[in-house]
């Protein structure tokens, strides 16, 4: 079985050149960074906040904060990782404001080991995504991810949707590498199980299995 390849992003040197130009006051360089990453930031924000308006606010606040604090960016990580950290913090803050009765943090929802063990093993049909229209798929994917606790879905989105490495995800979320790995495993297994409800092979016959 082949492993999953991460998406390749733009060349790092190019990013750094833009960052340095932006630090020197070149606004068009910063605009280019915005253009390059705004869709990714928007997607991350939507996944975490689960709300379009909040996500739009998060995009705006994250880029403004990055712009205002650009001189503090030490260039020890990729600019994108730094930007993601800002955006995730903004998005989690939005969630906290909305759910003041519950503190939302990345440290919540630690469950016992057994929670991640699959209960549902049924196989999927060969091309499950073709059973649904694009709009239906969007609805299914978004509904499914919504059911995950914020700490899990944030890790899943950064690692598997945005293609950040485990180390970059850990840096962006200020978590340890083992914590990222354990959340990712649980998120992956939980999502698989939830999606299975839509994608399972339709069994013919007694209908009870």
């Amino acid at each position: 079985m082949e492993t999953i390849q991460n998406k390749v992003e733009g060349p790092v040197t190019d990013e750094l050149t833009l960052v340095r130009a932006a630090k020197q006051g070149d606004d068009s360089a910063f605009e280019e960074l915005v253009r390059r990453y705004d869709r990714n930031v928007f997607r991350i924000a939507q996944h975490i906040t689960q709300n379009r308006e909040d996500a739009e606010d998060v995009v705006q606040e994250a880029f403004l904060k990055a712009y205002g604090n650009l001189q503090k960016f030490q260039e020890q990580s990729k600019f994108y990782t730094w930007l993601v950290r800002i955006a995730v913090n903004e998005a989690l803050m939005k969630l906290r404001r909305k759910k003041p009765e519950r503190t939302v943090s990345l440290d919540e929802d630690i469950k016992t080991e057994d929670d991640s063990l699959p209960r549902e093993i049924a196989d999927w049909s060969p091309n499950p995504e073709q059973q649904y229209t694009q709009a239906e798929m969007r609805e299914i994917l978004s509904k499914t991810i919504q059911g995950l606790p914020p700490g899990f879905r944030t890790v899943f989105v950064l690692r598997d949707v945005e293609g950040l490495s485990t180390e970059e995800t850990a840096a962006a979320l200020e978590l340890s590498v083992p914590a990222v790995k354990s959340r990712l495993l649980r998120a992956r297994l939980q999502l698989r199980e939830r999606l299975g409800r839509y994608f399972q092979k339709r069994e013919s016959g007694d209908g009870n299995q």
Partner: protein
Amino acid sequence: MKCSEFLHELTNYLDGVIDETTKVELENHLSWCHNCYVVCDTTKKKIEIYRDSQLYELPEDLRTRLRSAIMTK
């Protein structure tokens, strides 16, 4: 290798970050354990489905608002 041990390594396996010996053990387990094969295969499929989906297009007016907010800073 037990199923729980396989699952423990699943993420590293899918990401291709395991040593050769463990990989051989995992693939050996996969060759006879149908349940783990299904879990592994569908998990991989699921990640690919999410990754390929363009869930959210950025609204053009958000881009415009963002640009003018930066310019006025």
